């Protein structure tokens, strides 16, 4: 018998050992609790942050299940191109750029999953899929926010100072930013690098965690490692390019929204 559609197979041919998966998610949970304890958990998100997250998740649902899956038909159906998934990447990064607090990635993915269940999946396979997506895709975004000290994509860097002392731009560029609201090119470069890192990280969970563990764990079957490796390699270039584009879009939207 299965639980909510999850069979719980742990010995399918080629499946990643469950111990490795448990260790990863246990460590991820520890990180969540450590951050939550340090920063005050959900209380640190203001009402407007929660609304940004809700709207972002709604957009991701509309994109992933309706518009993106429709537009995707115009493109070749190959692992190199994933219009639905890329839309989610862009939207989550826009929300992350607007909120810029550690935890926004995970909360966004959590809300996206609940909305996805309400509109599409009907809570089948839950809570496993929500935990998986929140602690992989969401966590990766939060790690980058933590690494940038809450100045994701260079948004919120004032006077060209990164981490308080490191001079990111010349005095003139800093003045231009203050007086004319002009974003210096070094900020765009920094944003592109951060976007690329997130894009690269987002290419990993689906082939490795989903195809090589959660899919056989849930439904049975076996793991075709040829396809896992092919998918991983095929996802990386597109996800990196879209990560960079998402970072640049985020800067513009954050400006337009006035965040």
């Amino acid at each position, binding site marked *: 018998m299965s639980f909510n559609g999850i069979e719980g197979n742990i010995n399918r041919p080629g499946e990643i050992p469950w111990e490795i998966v448990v260790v990863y998610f246990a460590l991820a949970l520890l990180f969540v609790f450590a951050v939550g304890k340090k920063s005050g958990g959900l209380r640190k998100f203001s009402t407007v942050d929660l609304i940004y997250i809700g709207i972002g998740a709604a957009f991701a649902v509309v994109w992933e299940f309706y518009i993106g899956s429709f537009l995707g038909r115009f493109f070749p159906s190959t692992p190199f191109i994933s219009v639905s998934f890329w839309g989610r990447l862009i939207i989550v990064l826009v929300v992350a750029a607007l909120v810029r607090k550690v935890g926004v990635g995970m909360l966004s993915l959590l809300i996206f999953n609940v909305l996805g269940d309400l509109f599409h999946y*009907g809570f089948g396979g839950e809570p496993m899929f929500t935990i998986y997506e929140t602690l992989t895709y969401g966590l990766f975004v939060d790690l980058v926010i933590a690494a940038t000290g809450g100045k994701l994509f260079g948004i919120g860097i004032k006077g060209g100072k990164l981490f308080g002392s490191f001079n990111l731009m010349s005095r003139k560029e800093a003045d231009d930013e203050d007086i004319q609201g002009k974003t210096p090119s070094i900020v765009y470069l920094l944003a592109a690098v951060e976007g690329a890192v997130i894009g690269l990280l987002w290419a990993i969970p689906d082939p490795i965690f989903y195809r090589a563990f959660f899919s056989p764990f849930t439904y049975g079957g076996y793991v075709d490692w040829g396809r896992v490796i092919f998918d991983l390699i095929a996802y990386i270039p597109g996800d990196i390019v879209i990560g960079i584009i998402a970072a640049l879009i985020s800067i513009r939207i954050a400006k337009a929204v006035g965040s």
Partner: protein
Amino acid sequence: MVPWNFLYENPLSQNIISWVIFFYGVALPILLILWIIGLKGFMEITKYEKGKGFLYKMNPITKLMLSVVLMGVAAVTVWWIGAILTLGIILLYLTMNDGVRKFLYISLLTFTSIIGGMWSVAPFTPEATLELVFPDPAKYTTIWVWPSYFLFMGYEPQLTLQALIYGIQISFRITAVLSAALLLVLTTTTSDIFRMFTKLKIPQAMTFSVLVGVRTVPRIFSLLDTSVKMQFMRGLGYGKSRILYPVYYLYAGIVAIVPTIVYLFRGAKTLAISADTRGFRAYPGRTEMKTLGFCKYDYVAFGVMFLLIILAVLANVYGFGRTIPYVGY
């Protein structure tokens, strides 16, 4: 042997046609169907409207439980039970406000899921798995033979009719859930969904975000539709041939995305101020004017759920359980 076997026996036509199938799969039929539904259709199929049918009177928790039970039953029983459940759920849409139209939309959406699901499974199903469903490989009808290097992408050497049938069988396990999921959203007010999440002890902050999302989904379709129409009113595609209209429509839709995002995010501040001035999150819990109760329809639904579980057990006992594994997605 199929009449077009000469096409895959000739390496040139085999390569060209294989790549066309690889790139476009079942794209065209799905495209046509989604075109018929349109942005307005998606808005209607994701938005709550007042209604008098029994689904509107049921407790949201009952509807949530029903979709979870349906999911469980479809997952552990033979494919045609999933197909019957799907049909049953789709028929429930007729009891809704403007039911025939909603029935038509959900039927079309379900059909796209069936052929989409079939195509994501069929080319990747190995013969060893197929033999569990169709025991005699000698009777398989080969529809297409892929070039040998397609194996690198996880494709099986041949696409058989049996693999397509297997793909359709697999997709029926998903369609029951897909059609049940929208029942809750279409027949429950946002306030009732809030009460449901409160009852389920979900933190207020998360519930709030989810509900902002629930309200925003149909609004996105509506805003995109308005933005597309505005672009046509401003003269997009004026004087051009009608044949190009779908291309302009698509272009207008893509161009509309960023303004829609900015418009919605700008509105977020107003919504935040209005929630904060009403004391949102001032206290850990909320006071309730109305509590969620159960009516006779809920008890009928509990009975149906109980019967479904019995059905799943009996199906497994009598050999109609799920004997074939999922592969692919």
